[in-house]
């Protein structure tokens, strides 16, 4: 069912990782992603994997949920692995039909899949431990310096909040309209591609109309509640950096220095 999809799922909790300032978490994630793409030795990956594992344990998010987060992207991982195994030039160790498997290919495939898995796990850890609203708050704060260059930081964050709020509502609506048109004999699942695309019109038109109507209603409701953009706006929950965040920052820096040292020594 469509409503089973969960985007940016949040796992409520009060662990150390949950309590960290979201800005800290976003910055750390960005640094880690960069690091993952720079390093290329087993030692360095080992270190990052160890760090990730410790973070998962500290977050108290069940291991099953973490593993499940990889599931939707499983196909991409397999695809990358296959491409690398078969297309990396080098010393062939086996042959399948006209394709040859090389030692380098296997290494490259392993490297890429670990990179991808780490990427997915670390990003989901961010959404698991940070509620959507604090996440958008943090993004707004982090983007504020770019306002000088004309970046609408507040508007972007507000758009994200509203999108998160309305995704479930619109999914529900999609399902209802689909059923209603099916009851009138519409067919969404058979025939040629052209026929299928044409068949989507009875679904898409009502859906767009409904989304616009909702947007209209919401705009009026927001105006009635004195919304006038980001100027002079206060927040109920103020983000603040605490000693936990400083400690986490120190750990992050130590990790990065560690990775740098490994890189310099070619390990």
């Amino acid at each position, binding site marked *: 069912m469509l409503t089973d999809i969960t985007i940016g799922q949040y796992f*409520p909790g009060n662990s150390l990782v949950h309590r960290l300032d979201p800005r800290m978490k976003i910055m750390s994630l960005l640094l880690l992603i960069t690091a993952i793409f720079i390093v290329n030795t087993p030692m360095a990956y080992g270190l990052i994997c160890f760090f990730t594992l410790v973070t998962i344990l500290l977050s108290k998010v069940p291991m099953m949920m973490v593993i499940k987060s990889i599931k939707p992207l499983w196909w991409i991982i397999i695809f990358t692995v296959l491409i690398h195994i078969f297309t990396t030039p080098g010393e062939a160790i086996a042959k399948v039909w006209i394709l040859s498997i090389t030692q380098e290919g296997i290494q490259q495939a392993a490297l890429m899949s670990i990179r991808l898995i780490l990427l997915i796990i670390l990003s989901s850890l961010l959404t698991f431990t940070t*509620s*959507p*609203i604090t996440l958008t708050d943090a993004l707004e704060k982090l983007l504020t310096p770019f306002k000088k260059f004309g970046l609408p930081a507040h508007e972007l964050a507000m758009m994200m*909040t*509203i999108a*998160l*709020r309305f995704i*479930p*509502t619109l999914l*529900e609506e999609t399902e209802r309209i689909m059923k209603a048109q099916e009851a009138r004999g519409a067919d969404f699942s058979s025939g040629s591609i052209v026929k299928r695309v044409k068949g989507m019109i009875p679904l898409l038109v009502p859906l767009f109309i409904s989304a616009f*109507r*909702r947007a209209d*209603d*919401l705009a*009026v*409701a*927001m*105006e*009635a*509640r*004195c*919304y*006038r953009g980001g100027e*002079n*706006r*206060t*927040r*109920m*929950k*103020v983000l603040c950096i605490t000693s936990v965040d400083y400690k986490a920052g120190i750990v992050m820096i130590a990790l990065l220095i560690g990775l740098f040292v490994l890189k310099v020594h070619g390990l």
Partner: protein
Amino acid sequence: MNQLIKVENLQYIYNENMANEFIALHDLNLTIHEGEFVAIIGTNGSGKSTLAKHFNALLLPTSGSCIIDGIETNSSDKLWAIRQKVGMVFQNPDNQIVATLVEEDIAFGPENLGVPSDEIKSRVDNALRAVGMEEYRKHAPHLLSGGQKQRVAIAGALAMQTKCLVLDEPTAMLDPQGRLEVLETVKNLHKRLGITIVYITHFMEEAVEADRVIVMKNGSVLDDGAPRAIFTQVKKLKELGLDVPLAAQVAYQLRKTGIKLPADIITDEELVVALCQSF
């Protein structure tokens, strides 16, 4: 009593000077005092919603004036003061909740007003308590029932410390349970906190609860009085296409057959008592 809403010779025209011009409100005069509970009834297209949007300066008069607590809605620099005084609750419970958490949504209004963080927290607490939704503060709005969503919307207005709540058919999309919840909440706010209520509805059993009922037709006020005075005019309301409370209708029909009954019956209780006395 202080005049909270004063409407004078109000006219409102949609799409003025265009082919599809439509006069929604004609030369309307109306005064609502602080602390009143007013119900507005009328068929679709009678101008109820258009009028309600004037109370919050979402629409501005084409001609005439609308004065809220001494401020003309036309004076654009006072717009936010007016909207803070008059909170709105709309028909569709899904389309007025902004945030992904109940408490965040209630905080939305005060945040826009620039209220300091600590005060927002206490206002949110109070608003949640006033509508009886404390235990749902961390819930996602889309998982609540219709009645609960409307109570969240009401709390959102309360958190702005509004003097007046304008509810535009808040129960039209709800089930009987949800309708009852919303009506009880509104009655409670009127009684306990003295908030002025303007309640637009199609359901006569809800309008009966008000102190004063305004009947609208074709963009003007047709009738204005206590529920008892309005709902005993069975014939007139039926002709307008409106419902009447059952007891009023039965009493009206009994009177037509020659049975002597008092002219002001609107509840079952009153009808039973009157009938028992007549035999």
